[in-house]
């Protein structure tokens, strides 16, 4: 990055403090937005958050929250009563899993064979990123053909034939005719 000849048009955009200020605003807003309402206690919101994690076993592909089936109604009552007993979210979900089997939880398990569903995509994505990084570093090492003077002459000739040489916008190697001002 040696020959950065002309000064940037908007110097302040290149200042680290300008971006730092932006980062601070973002951080501040995010911190201010943290919801401090406790997740215990009895509320419709909390009940709903639990209901959408449970499968309605009598329906096709619906959660307890979405279903009107008798079993779903019964589940909702059970959730309400457990919330009133002061149970935590995890305890309530574990209760249903114990009584109705793992199938009732719409979240796949985090242990056993079923946990592969969480692990495989993460490992796969990591592998893809590693492969890309390796590819880039290989590409960087084995530099392909370099333009020599003969190539440059060819390009210059072609550009001259097109009548673009000496044009004030001869930077426009692409021939996109992008002329400003």
């Amino acid at each position: 990055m040696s020959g950065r000849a002309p000064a940037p048009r908007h110097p302040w955009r290149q200042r680290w403090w300008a971006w730092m200020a932006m980062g601070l605003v973002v951080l501040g807003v995010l911190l201010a937005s943290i919801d401090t309402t406790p997740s215990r206690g009895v509320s419709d919101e909390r009940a709903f958050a639990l209901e959408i994690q449970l499968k309605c076993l009598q329906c096709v592909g619906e959660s307890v929250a979405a279903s009107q089936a008798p079993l779903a109604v019964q589940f909702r009552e059970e959730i309400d009563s457990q919330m009133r007993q002061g149970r935590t979210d995890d305890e309530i979900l574990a209760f249903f899993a114990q009584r109705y089997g793992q199938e009732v939880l719409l979240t796949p398990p985090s242990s056993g064979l079923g946990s592969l569903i969480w692990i495989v995509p993460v490992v796969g994505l990591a592998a893809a990123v590693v492969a890309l990084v390796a590819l880039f570093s290989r590409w960087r090492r084995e530099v392909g053909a370099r333009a020599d003077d003969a190539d440059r002459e060819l390009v210059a000739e072609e550009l001259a034939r097109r009548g673009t040489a000496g044009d004030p916008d001869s930077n426009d190697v692409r021939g996109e005719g992008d002329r400003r001002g």
Partner: protein
Amino acid sequence: MNRALGLAGLLVGLGGCVIGIGVLLNGLRRGRPHLLKLGLAYSLVVLFGAVLSTFAMQRALITRDFSVEFVFDHGSSTTPLLFNIATMWSALEGSILLWGLILAGYIATVAWRFRGRLEDPLVAWALVTMFAVGVFFFGLMLTAANPFRGVVPPPGYDGPGPNPLLQNHILMAVHPPMLYLGYVGFTVPFAFAVAALVTGRVGEGWLVETRRWTLVAWGFLTAGIVLGAWWSYEVLGWGGYWKWDPVENASFLPWLTGTAYLHSVMVQERRGMLRVWNLSLLCATFALTILGTFLTRSGVVESVHAFSSGTVGPILLGFFAVVVAVSVGLIGWRGDQLRSPGRIDSPVSREGAFLANNVLFAAFAFVVLLGTVFPLIIEALNGERLSVGVPFFSRMTMPIGFALLTLMAVAPVLPWRKGTGEVLRDRLWWPAWGGVACLVLALVVGATGPTVLLAFGLAGFAAGSAIRQLALAARRQGWRGFVGRANGGMVVHLGTILVAVAFAASTSYIRQAEVTLAPGASSTVAGHEVTYLGSRTVERDNRVEVISQVRVDGGRVYEPRLNRYRMGGMTIGTPSVRVGPTEDVYLSVSSSPDPVTGEVTIRVIVQPLVVWLWVGGIVMVVGTVLSLFPGRRRDPTAPTSAGVTSGGARRGTEGGDRQGAEAVG
């Protein structure tokens, strides 16, 4: 009569495909151009057959010809005309017929569009490939999924009509055809990809030929998916529009790989790179449309959309295997010719961004596919039954969505070949402040939760970037700054951002409650006063409607209904929604009025910004249409990539006025 007509049409379609393949292959082998020119004629024969069959099916449905088994099972004398027409795609056999019709339409359009070049082996092989797909679908209809099977109806018989859920809303007449136009549309680029591989002309020519076809298919698929979500919201009564149902996933998978392709194809057009990858994406997209049809039409997964049926599943799975095998085989065979002539110079470049985009979309598609089939795999492995639902998909796709939004903000301002931090800082200044402004605005209007706010901020950032590109393009080119692939693509980005914001807001801030109200009583849910006024009953041809009147916030009266269908006795609700720019109030009756007290139970769901999902969908489709118009034309022989001068000074001095033109393909 209808059966005979329909079967004749299917036979004509199948015959057209088979003979078309024979003639074209013969012409290709012996190099006879006059034989290759017959491709158009055969494609018209196939189209005629498909139209004839569709006509026969519609005639049977409209005249209630119950001697056709499909009408016997799904038709009814009481179904209104529009839904009667739509009955064709409300069940397996008819939906395959719709597929066949659309396929025949695409084949004929391709043949017509390339009528001047039919003797070109590339076009001939593409037609052969499409005819082969046609052989499969017409063959399927003549065997396992025959829509024209006969039956002897008892005297005075009346059919049950289509599934009540599917005759409840006008969108059902539009959503499946749109979706199928998208699914089937991907056959065209797939066919050209196969043709390119077979003929060995694996350069960029075939990509340019099929660019618009891919965009058209993608646009239809997008429209189909959004309409499906809208239908689900308007009909199903639980206030949701997307629940990662296997069938929704099946339509989303080709959308994801298709979207990845639309981006990475630009790298190939521009730099000749990523050839194998692009071919693989196209083949995967087409294969996923078949896999999706298998998943939804074979009954292997539980879904409201699934039509169970005996032998269709294995046949579709077999076809999927053939498609994959042929694709992999061809790509492997041509492997040596597919080596890229170029290199990506720097990860901080437009190419690098497209590559990252592709990794993310591939990961997205993988997560969705895995989540869809995982319960099947586990059950097959150890008999354990488990469920994969919304919590899994939300948790896994959210980080990918965030990364995609970030990329959407950064990628459009990146130059090809090599970008510098300086250029990025310069060009991203205003878009980044746009993101900050969104964050602050969200906080001011009372949004909570850092994750959702981060989504809003990134969305604002990405929107700022897209708007910047459009503004620069418009300043330079006037109205032409909104057409062409790069500019239309920015409009699509804006639509996607709207959808993302609406999705994040409505799923995070949904509030719902069930209230039981006597006539005249009120209740308040999430700040909205809901007053139940009373109910009335309306008798219709095919159903009894119990209409409840509910006043919201002392204003307009809304009428959520319960429909009891005479056939089958199913009761289906029709919700009523107060749509607003900031918030929807969704009313759905869950029980008929109590005979003694007159009380009804109403589910009230309040969700913010839902309407912007549909607006976003419309913007995406509009953007796709804008991309179809030719943008600024580049001299096709002009050098397409600039050398990087040492130090990147060239870029640094030019500010932000170039990149709109850079992206025009």
